[in-house]
């Protein structure tokens, strides 16, 4: 896959500097999004708990228990994202990077996505083995989970797609929405959405970039690039005669 400039680039996320302090200044729309992300799981937890209290039938018990646990997981992740946002804004977030397997990171991000939604898990379309990258595993899982959640936002009978490639010392994970209207990204207000802001800042802290491409009527794609681990970079150079040292 080429890294050539897309037809139109809506979000081109540069280095972390100059980005993080902006996170502390939330817009009205972003505050509304946070209320939404907290309010929905909270509504599920309190509502289903009341139903459990009022009705003892098996259908209610099964459904309510499952939904309460799912909502608690969502609430937990939403709180983690808000705390990360605060840490990013205050400049106190420190990464602990080491060589990690990108396949494991992607699998954990997908698993976290699946635990909190009935939306389809993105289909893995990668052609090559996942490379190793230099990353803080926990934070990269969080960033990719947020990207997947954003791109695979709309309920659909089809799944989003996820692919990986390597180029110029970087691993690139691309997530493409299932439908042309299938992600929050079709919503202009979502350009500054909290989740994607946290993801882009986390990826920038890793020395990578998050690019989002979207065109009216086209599927949206998020491309996350992260530096390869040193040994993977050496392997890339050895296997590509254009990149001799």
């Amino acid at each position: 896959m080429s890294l050539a400039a897309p037809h139109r680039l809506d979000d081109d996320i540069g280095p972390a500097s100059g980005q993080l302090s902006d996170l502390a200044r939330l817009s009205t729309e972003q505050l509304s999004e946070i209320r939404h992300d907290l309010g929905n799981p909270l509504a599920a937890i309190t509502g289903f708990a009341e139903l459990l209290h009022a009705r003892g039938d098996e259908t209610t018990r099964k459904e309510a228990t499952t939904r309460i646990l799912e909502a608690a997981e969502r609430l937990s992740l939403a709180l983690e994202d808000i705390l990360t946002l605060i840490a990013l804004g205050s400049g106190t977030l420190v990464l602990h990077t080491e060589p990690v397997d990108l396949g494991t990171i992607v699998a954990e991000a997908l698993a976290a996505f699946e635990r909190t939604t009935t939306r389809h898990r993105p289909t893995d379309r990668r052609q090559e083995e996942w490379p190793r990258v230099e990353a803080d595993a926990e934070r990269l899982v969080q960033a990719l989970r947020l990207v997947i959640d954003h791109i695979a936002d709309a309920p659909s009978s089809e799944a989003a797609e996820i692919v990986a490639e390597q180029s110029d010392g970087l691993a690139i994970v691309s997530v493409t929405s299932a439908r042309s209207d299938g992600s929050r990204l079709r919503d202009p207000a979502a350009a500054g959405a909290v989740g994607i802001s946290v993801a882009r800042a986390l990826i920038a802290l890793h020395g990578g970039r998050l690019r989002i491409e979207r065109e009216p009527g086209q599927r949206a794609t998020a491309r996350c690039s992260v530096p390869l681990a040193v040994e993977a970079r050496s392997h890339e150079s050895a296997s590509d005669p254009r990149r001799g040292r």
Partner: protein
Amino acid sequence: MNLPRILVADDDDSVRSLLRLTLPAGGVEVVEARDGEEALELISSHAPDLLLLDWKMPGRPGADVLAEVRRSHPTLPVIVLTADQAGSTHELAGALGADTFLTKPFSPLELLEAVESFLPELAGDQSLTDAE
């Protein structure tokens, strides 16, 4: 006998499930939409008696849907569901023609009372109040 038909439009499947379970089983027909576009399609095809409308949905948000509903179905009762307690949201929804609001998290009893105010034939349901 035709049951009253309620369209639930919310992108969050947990909230849709909560609304479906709260409404009296056998007393209403529940139709579900997962986004604003689907809600408008189902309003045209299913002619609901009441719309429960989430305010913040991806793509076509509740405000868009409400404005369109008021043009095409001016008498359809609409209960707006929102996590946003900001007065501006309520003002906008009111100006666009919302009949009432429920702020998330809401109690199932609160929901039933709101629904019964528009569909009084459901008022006999005691499934949530007889448990104790």
